[in-house]
């Protein structure tokens, strides 16, 4: 029997389409400021489900460009201030639709480069918050645009290495606790800059493998509950380290499938919780990495379908 059963792809597609159009929902209102990331999660999920063509491409592209500022950066929605994470989501959406050529990439590139500090780290925006997530966002964005040359890659890598902890994990800033989301960002940054040789990959792989719990799910830190989003962050990190077989994939698949809402569609953080677009994306992305035949293959570092990257 196919171990990816049940996976009602049509139902998930309907859920995602409904979520896009459900402008009266509380969730829709509260996520207005980061709509562009919501778009990325929704559109990539639909593409993994082979359903991107059901979206109104021109309207979405036009709206994405209306989120761009003079500086070249993108905000989370129209009238939102520009920041790195939203800029990445915008570029990823354009890549999904294969319309990157419509971007004035020089402006975006100079915006990203302007956020790098002298120690190699990146600010999220002009207000100065530093976090290893922003390093990954900058490096990924520039990798998609094939312009890593505009930043100090060596210094960016040094900053990432400074976030490495004794347990093999990475934190948000030097000394901060290892966390699966941060590990994904740091491993992604090292992968995209061909710098994985700088770390003890066995140690980090071990820390990641230890995230799997008895219920098959993955957690973000020792002694925490499993959450579907870590199915992506931990799994893609292991994939980048060529250690996907270090976790029990059957048990993880079972866990992700149990987090589905088989009535209304979508995937939640934990079994019997309410679905949302964020966890739907990460659940589907995790299943894709584990080889689900009904889904397109996703790239572990780019978090976009493989066919877009090649």
């Amino acid at each position, binding site marked *: 029997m196919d171990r990816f059963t049940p996976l009602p792809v049509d139902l998930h597609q309907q859920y995602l389409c409904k979520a896009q159009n459900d*402008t009266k929902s509380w969730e829709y209102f509260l*996520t207005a400021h980061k709509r562009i990331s919501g778009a990325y999660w929704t559109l990539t999920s639909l593409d993994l489900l082979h359903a991107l063509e059901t979206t109104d491409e021109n309207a979405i592209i036009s709206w994405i460009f209306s989120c761009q500022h003079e500086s070249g950066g993108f905000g989370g929605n129209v009238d*939102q201030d520009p920041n790195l994470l939203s800029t990445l989501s915008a570029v990823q959406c354009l890549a999904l639709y294969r319309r990157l050529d419509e971007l004035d990439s020089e402006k975006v590139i100079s915006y990203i480069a302007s956020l790098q500090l002298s120690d190699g780290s990146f600010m999220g925006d002009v207000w100065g918050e530093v976090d290893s997530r922003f390093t990954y966002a900058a490096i990924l964005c520039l990798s998609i645009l094939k312009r890593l040359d505009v930043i100090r890659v060596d210094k960016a890598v040094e900053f990432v290495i400074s976030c490495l*902890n004794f*347990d093999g994990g990475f*934190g948000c800033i030097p*000394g901060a606790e290892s966390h699966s989301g941060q590990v994904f960002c740091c491993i992604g940054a090292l992968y995209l800059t061909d710098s994985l040789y700088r770390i003890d990959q066995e140690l980090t792989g071990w820390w990641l493998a230890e995230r799997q719990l008895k219920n098959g799910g993955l957690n973000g830190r020792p002694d925490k509950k499993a959450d579907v989003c870590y199915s992506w962050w931990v799994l893609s990190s292991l994939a980048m380290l060529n250690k996907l077989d270090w976790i029990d994939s059957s048990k993880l698949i079972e866990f992700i499938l149990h987090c589905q809402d088989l009535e209304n569609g979508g995937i939640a953080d934990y079994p019997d919780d309410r679905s949302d677009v964020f966890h739907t994306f990460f659940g589907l992305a995790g299943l894709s990495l584990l080889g689900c035949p009904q889904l397109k293959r996703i790239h572990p570092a780019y978090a976009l379908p493989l066919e877009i990257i090649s």
Partner: protein
Amino acid sequence: MSQSHFQDLDLRTDTKALLELCQDVIQDIEEYIKPERSAPIKYEIDFLWISALFRILLKRKEYSERALKVSLAAIYNNPADYSCWDFRRQILKSLQQCSLFQQELEICNELCLQNPKNYQIWFHRRFLCTFLENPLQELQFTEITLLEDAKNYHAWSHRQWVVDHFQVLDEEAFSKKFLEMDFRNNSAWNYRYFTLFSNMRTTVNSLELRQSEASYAWEMLQRSFMNESAWYYLWKVVNDGKSIAASV
């Protein structure tokens, strides 16, 4: 647009009060009302009008006390709206009044306790900190937050930032307190290592301290060997100790 226009609407009293306060700038407010950003609940129309008023003041770059009032209403509607927090920082920098910074901290305290995993509020605290230079208040606040949720990543990271930025020493008892409550608390183990052995600490090369920490970790493991964090900690201090001993 006249006062009577919005007086006829079914708005909350405080929403009407804010609109009255901003009479001089709301002529074109209706173009800022974006139906696609409406909210589903009882005060839907209030959210729309507050959001529109905030956008008007933002566009005018009005860094005033009434802008603080309006943006506060917008933030209560959606504490994750980062542009709103950005705007408040602009206003505070522009007005440069110490009392406003302190007031802002009290607002942050309230919102942070209600939304303890909100990135924007924690970063806003950091901004306020650099003006107020109030490490003690921040240590007290992070402790309150951690007593609610002992593994709140933002609270631990913020406390670490405060300790680093203000060169606070003597945090050993703090991590110990949380480990007594839960000897598997990975955040507390990480914090313990950071506060005892990170670069700025005079104890960074202390072999004796590492020996006593190894004993401490071993003692905690006696309570249960199923303790991933304690094993990592023990392994790290023993390895550090070996390197230090070898270099002597």
